């Protein structure tokens, strides 16, 4: 007769140890990330405001005074007291004598890597986009990030036709293959960075469809600075 030998006491199962360690590491990493985020968010926000203010003054050279507008869900314009408010923002710039120089409009669209956030200036007088500037993005260095710096690409936005007729754009903004731009409402893409170029086209296109009709509707108010 053989007696059944009970199995020797197992050391702590390695599975449990792995889960415990990975859990602890993830928890600590998560806490470090959250902590850094909390500690830096104030500085980051004020830095982004500086970038934004600099972008506005770059896009509207000569502007002495700015009024920040927000668009309410009903489609009405309202004046925002400061930059903190979220949502769609417009920056109306005026020269020394109070004449409206143009409106800078914020917009964003999904690029190749992440959201591309940009601003463009709109001239109600010319019914055209007169400048474009990327505020934040994560596009591939050397390719997609040329949407920020490539002078040929940026020259697309010196006079991009966005005429609005009856609350709709006359010609939708279109991104065309590099070197084949023929009309003033087309954007000449960057060769090798088609996705990022198209994202910029979309960014401007959707904004032209939705925001510029509101600007045109409220143009009297904006011109008077009310």
């Amino acid at each position: 007769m053989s007696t059944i030998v009970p199995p020797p006491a197992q050391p702590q199962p390695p599975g449990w140890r792995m889960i415990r360690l990975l859990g602890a590491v993830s928890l600590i990493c998560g806490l470090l990330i959250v902590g850094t985020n909390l500690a830096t968010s104030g500085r980051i926000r004020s830095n982004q405001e500086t970038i934004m203010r600099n972008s506005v003054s770059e896009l509207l050279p000569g502007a002495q005074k700015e009024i920040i507008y927000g668009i309410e869900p009903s489609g009405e314009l309202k004046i925002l007291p400061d930059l903190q408010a979220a949502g769609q923002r417009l920056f109306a710039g005026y020269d020394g004598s109070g004449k409206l120089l143009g409106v800078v409009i914020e917009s964003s669209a999904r690029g190749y890597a992440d959201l591309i956030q940009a601003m463009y200036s709109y001239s109600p007088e010319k019914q055209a986009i007169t400048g474009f500037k990327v505020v934040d993005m994560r596009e591939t260095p050397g390719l997609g990030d040329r949407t920020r710096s490539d002078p040929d690409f940026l020259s697309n936005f010196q006079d991009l036709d966005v005429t609005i007729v009856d609350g709709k754009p006359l010609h939708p903004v279109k991104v065309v293959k590099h070197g084949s731009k023929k009309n003033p409402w087309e954007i000449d893409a960057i060769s090798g960075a088609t996705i990022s170029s198209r994202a910029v086209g979309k960014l401007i296109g959707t904004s032209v469809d939705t925001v510029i009709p509101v600007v045109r509707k409220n143009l009297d108010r904006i011109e008077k600075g009310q």
Partner: protein
Amino acid sequence: MSEIVSCHNAENPGITAEGNPFRNGLWKQNPVFFMVLGMCPTLAITNSVRNAVSMGFATTFVMVVSYGLISMIRKLIPKQVRIATYIAILAMAVTVVDFLVKAISIPIYLALGAYIPLIVSNCLTLERAEAYAGKQPVIKSMLDGLGMGFGFTIALTMLGAVREVLGAGTFLGVHLFGKSFEPWVLFLLPPGGFISLAMWLLLFAWWKERSAERAAIKESAPTELAVPVEARA
């Protein structure tokens, strides 16, 4: 991810933990020219010197911080989950660096912002965690991160210099050749990255072979019969 997996398996017998960890990374075991690691950023972002230097410094910072942490807890990490642990710590370090740069300086953020998230996909960072920081004490691991980071920066800058000078006719944005120079745009595009990397690798392979030959000759030949090496070659 495929890059990380494939290069992680490549065991190079020439790489050892011997000697000064800082100096090893700087030149003798240079991550780009001798270990051929971290090719994704090496090829992708070296089309200008400024990009190369920025990427190099950001990578160095991430490596020093995360190797310190990894080395600190190296005895607690079960073997089976070490890679996952390293990746979690590296990703944390990259995210923290991203926040810090955003908060500290706008110009640095504008120059570096797009490159920082790329660091976590750089297999060099994971390889050194596995080969060094997971086995060595904290100070040595951080020194290894610093040396490897500076070595990486030097290599990227050398590639970036060739590509920027040939591809754009500039160095750090300063025009070198005047208006008549027709830039060789190929060097700014991805093929140019491969071509200039191949040229540097060829040069170093030739140099390594030659110095090995010289050492062999020196050993075999008695000193009194020594003929200048140039004459033999």
